[in-house]
């Protein structure tokens, strides 16, 4: 790590002057992660095993996938509360399709393909609906996505009649249990989503537009950016990510419960984004930061649980981490 050497933009300070807050705000998440790893290597039994790695990665996957979409949304200065409900919808649809409850499909490969594509697209459509409310009617994102937060889970419950759908379809559950090259398939899915989003945010006009809108929407409009279209896109992407995460969850569980899939996910995702260093007011976003943020939160929870601290106490610690991380960023910005 060459952290100390890289500090090229002191914020209005004399060059070379070491700024503790700036340093912490930039690398706090990485430092926290490294400290956690060191602590675990020293004190948690059986930490340095492949199994531990797999447990943590598989648990963090769905949060990361959702949080990536959330990062783009927050980058535009918005927020998406509906992700958990959209996960429930896609999680409810998929089993209905591959168990031929809607239309009978004989070919299992075809059924599974449709069962993956259609629910994700449906979630994407709902995301597009969020974007439409926000771009067309200028409804505040928190209110606009509140609509589907409330109604979305209801829709999932209505189409399944609130019943638990249990299934055993190895072809579909590959996304939960498959291990190409020894790596869990869901981790691969997560990696692909992260890379795609990282590339889009860093290397494409779309990514620049996202940050421009979050930085100053009025200026972006005047600069000729199609603000409405970009907003539609980020909420649709957030919906797609949520849909995908919903499928991963039900594949792991071998069951889909519309009452539970994705419950509270919006908060986990927002927490990961915030801890990762994306500004919640928009204009600055980092996908890798989000990944690190999610890993940090997960590792904190794992550390506490592995050392006998109850889950409830882990919640309190998580809260403190979120506040601490955001406060540090705040210190940096005030200067």
């Amino acid at each position, binding site marked *: 790590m060459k952290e100390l050497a890289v500090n090229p933009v002191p914020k209005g300070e004399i060059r070379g002057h070491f700024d503790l807050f700036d340093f912490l705000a930039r690398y706090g998440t990485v430092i926290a992660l490294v400290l956690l790893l060191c602590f675990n290597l020293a004190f948690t039994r059986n930490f340095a095993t492949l199994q531990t790695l797999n447990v943590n990665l598989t648990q963090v996957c769905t949060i990361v996938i959702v949080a990536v979409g959330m990062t783009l949304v927050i980058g535009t200065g918005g927020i998406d509360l509906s992700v958990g409900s959209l996960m429930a919808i896609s999680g409810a649809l998929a089993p209905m399709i591959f168990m031929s409850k809607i239309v009978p499909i004989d070919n299992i490969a075809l059924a599974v393909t449709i069962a993956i594509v259609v629910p994700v697209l449906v979630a994407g459509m709902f995301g597009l609906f969020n974007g439409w409310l926000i771009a067309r*009617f200028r409804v505040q994102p928190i209110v606009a996505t*509140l609509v589907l*937060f*409330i109604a979305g889970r*209801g829709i999932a419950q209505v189409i399944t009649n609130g019943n638990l759908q249990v299934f055993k379809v190895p072809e579909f559950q590959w996304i939960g249990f498959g291990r190409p090259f020894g790596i869990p398939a869901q981790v691969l899915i997560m990696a692909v989503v992260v890379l795609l989003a990282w590339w889009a945010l860093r290397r494409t006009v779309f990514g620049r537009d996202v940050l421009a809108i979050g930085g100053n929407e009025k200026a972006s409009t005047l600069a000729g950016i199609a603000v409405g279209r970009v907003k539609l896109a980020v909420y649709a992407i957030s919906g797609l990510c949520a849909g995908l995460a919903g499928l991963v969850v039900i594949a792991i569980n071998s069951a889909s419960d519309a009452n539970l899939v994705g419950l509270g996910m919006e908060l986990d995702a927002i927490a990961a984004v915030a801890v990762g260093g994306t500004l*919640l007011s928009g204009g600055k976003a980092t996908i890798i930061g989000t990944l690190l943020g999610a890993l940090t939160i997960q590792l904190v929870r794992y550390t506490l649980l592995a050392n006998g601290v109850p889950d*409830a106490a882990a919640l309190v610690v*998580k*809260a403190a981490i979120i506040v601490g991380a955001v406060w540090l960023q*705040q210190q940096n910005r005030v200067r």
Partner: protein
Amino acid sequence: MRKIDFGGLLSTYGVVIALLALIAFGWLRYENFLGMFNIMSVLRYNSMFALVALGMCFVIMTGGIDLSVGTVAALGSVAAAYSSPYGPIAGLAAGVGVGTVVGLINAVMITRMHIMPFIATLASMLAASGTALLLANNRSVPVSYQSGFTDLGQGNFVGLPIPAIIAAIAYILGWVVLNYTATGRGVLAVGGSEESAKLMGLPADRIKALAYIASGGLAGLAGVILAAQFGAGQPIEGVGWELFAIASVVVGGTLLTGGVGSVGSTLAGVLLLGILFTVLNFENGLGWISLSAYWQSVIRGAFLLAVVILQARLVAGETSRT
């Protein structure tokens, strides 16, 4: 300025008209819809949500948001259940006390540490939930039935449910504070433009702090009623209450950007969303259709959608004219 106020007024009356229409619909369609028993149970059950929404209304009028209310209510219910053997006053004090403390913590995070309300209260939401689970050892805490504590949720006074009376008193106080005190006017001023409010010499931070403290205290109070009504402190209750409260406030016509709002229409919003559920039950009772309880969230969402679009139209219309 006047025109925007007009828009606010229109959406205020909108919710009252919708509420009256819904009640009229229920009265015409179902027997016993306006029967004493039904009215009382609607009031009793919705008083918790009304209290939470009142606090949320004040916070939103300052331009903020309080996501912690649901889990604070859960925490309050646990605290109240533990102190219920010492009587209703002790239960009230414990529940409202912990709620106020969380509100104070929110206020410090938001006004002193300058953390965005959304994130600050998200964190306290998690922390309150964790604390409630720790205190209650992950299970519900039975209340004492001998001390009279349960009257707070199940009792009647002059024929009215006590929780409804508590909520009514809270709303009257809230209405007076908002309309007839400097702090109340300050709430709207800060929400309208914090910058201008500060330049006018208003203690913006103190006003915001008071709103969060009140919201926490009211959520704690709702928790006390929850524990008294269902006979147990429930650490996992309150999930989604915050969003229900926000929905009620928005349906009531309060703008989430702050600066505009009304206590009365928030109450109307709570009742509207609550009575929708009752209507659904009655409709099922008729036997013509059989809508599962799951429909209620779909219908609530659709309702919120209609209101939001209507509100957006109104605001857009006003701003384009001025």
